[in-house]
């Protein structure tokens, strides 16, 4: 029960960091070798050596962060907000050392200029137990809309 509570709080915190645009705080949730991955199709088994919507280590995450913070990131100039809801959290595997594998579902509403878009799907987190909580080894994002045509693109992690 404790692990379930801790994991849920961790996921809520992650979505809160995104919605408040605390990019560095979000990146800091990842382990030094952590990967954020969004495959274009649910059938993909690895991020390595395949087409990916996102496949980022912390260095690439930093590029993305510095880009959106740059004053000339033109696409980010208009009004832009997101709202994540995370739910259906289930621990698939729990190791003795406290590491866990977690599946959850998310819904993100995005406002850009005057348009609202919805992205939804499931998260798969591989979390490493640390002294202060968890660190993300792998976050897999299977988006229901992954194969749909993108009316405009994604600029920040979902």
């Amino acid at each position, binding site marked *: 029960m404790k692990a379930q509570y801790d994991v849920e709080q961790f996921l809520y915190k992650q979505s809160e960091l995104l919605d408040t645009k605390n990019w560095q705080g979000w990146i800091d949730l990842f382990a030094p070798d952590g990967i954020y991955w*969004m495959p*274009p*199709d649910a059938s993909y088994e690895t991020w390595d*050596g*395949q*087409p*990916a*919507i*996102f*496949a980022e280590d912390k*260095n*690439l995450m*930093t*590029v*993305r*962060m*510095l*880009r*959106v913070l*740059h*004053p*000339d*990131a*033109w*696409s980010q*100039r*208009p009004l832009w907000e997101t709202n994540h809801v995370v739910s259906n959290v289930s621990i698939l595997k729990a190791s003795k050392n406290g590491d866990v594998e977690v599946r959850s579902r998310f819904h993100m509403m995005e406002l850009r200029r005057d348009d609202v878009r919805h992205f939804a799907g499931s998260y798969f987190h591989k979390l490493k137990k640390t002294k202060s909580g968890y660190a993300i080894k792998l976050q897999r994002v299977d988006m229901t809309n992954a194969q*749909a*045509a*993108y*009316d*405009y*693109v*994604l*600029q920040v992690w979902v």
Partner: protein
Amino acid sequence: MLKERNPDLSRYVEPDRVRKEVYTDAEIFEREMERIHETVWIYCGHESQVPKAGDYCAVQIGRQPMIMVRGKDRKVNVLYNRCPHRGNMIVGDRKGNTGEQFRCSYHAWTFHHDGKLKNIPMMESGYAGTRYGKDNPDCSMKKAARVESYRGFVFASLSSSGPSLKDFLGKSIVAFDDMCDRAPGGEVEVVPNCFRVIQHSNWKLFMENQIDALHPSVTHQSTGRAAHEVEKILAKNAKGGEALSYHMLSAFATVTIDKWDNFQTINYPHGHCILTGYMGLRPQDPDTKAYDKVMIKAYGRKRFEEIVGVNIHHVLVYPGLSVQSPLQQLRAVRPLGVDRTLTEIWHFRLKGAPEAIYRRSLAYYNLVNSPATLINADDLENFWKCHTGLSSDGGDWVSFGRHHGRDIEEKGVVSSGPNMGTSEAPMRNQMKAWAKYMKEETRTP
């Protein structure tokens, strides 16, 4: 809006400027679909997308929904996605395998892979004595007027007359030669994933932007700077290896606006264009050296040097294709309406090349061309702003005056002058081709 019933649209194009309606008028859009996209050779897909008999992909040519399908005879056919019975579309998904035949979901008419009518339920009792049946070509799925393939890249034209594919492509054929020649096996195969992105603008803004050497350091400054910052930190840790993909991004800022004049554009009839300029794809890392070895074995040193020495950044096949051959990336443009355009973005694998070479161009595909692109997002923003601005009454013309009058023209080929790589020659050339197409109907059904 167009005030005249049948205006001479070539008057909308002057050598160094173009009327805004060319981008924003819905009637002009309909006419250009008819006279350009539904007349000339349009890219359908690569043969490796349909390896087995019955494999099909849905393709849009102009406003026409089409199907590219592999037949049992290995031939790739391009058919109108329409049942001759009541007009129902034959396939409703983007790709699949239809098995032995196409079967309409409405009344079960069946068709061979070349579109010929195979059967109608209770055909004898239902149609005996009528004009309908297997002998009537109107009862088969209509085929594209012409289909041709070059090195595995399939094109179709909806006009039975006009230049052959090779004549149409002219020098822009180098897009496919350069891509395939870089494979030790001389062939490429598609990486089975298509990224599809919609922009809120006219299709021509995309074609102009692809070879616009003036915009990268302005539009893509933020990503270039960000990648450069991280690149510097990585270089300090001196592990190497990863640096190239960062370099592809940082070049957008480190190659400053003045340096883009070192590039050159070569502009051909039909609106095609080659942007020269090398992106540092011949570094001396172990991966490149291993690749060079395989290539030299396949081609011999002399031919190898020729192949990797081809100096291309981008090839534009007007009106609907943008190819980055040294990185094996291809973007096909599908106009959805006067103010909406879909691009389909593909990556190809060099057959016989080491895995590391595939991964290098894959990095570019993911970082630049995925729906989470670090680059194209700012182009998309510009496209919408451009289209919205052009729809206003704030002005009547789009200007293409940069280095106008300084281009070098020889036998119909227009090159930007020395150290004038940012010349708007490609836009002038595209609009020249556009005006020629729009002047008269050349399509033969």
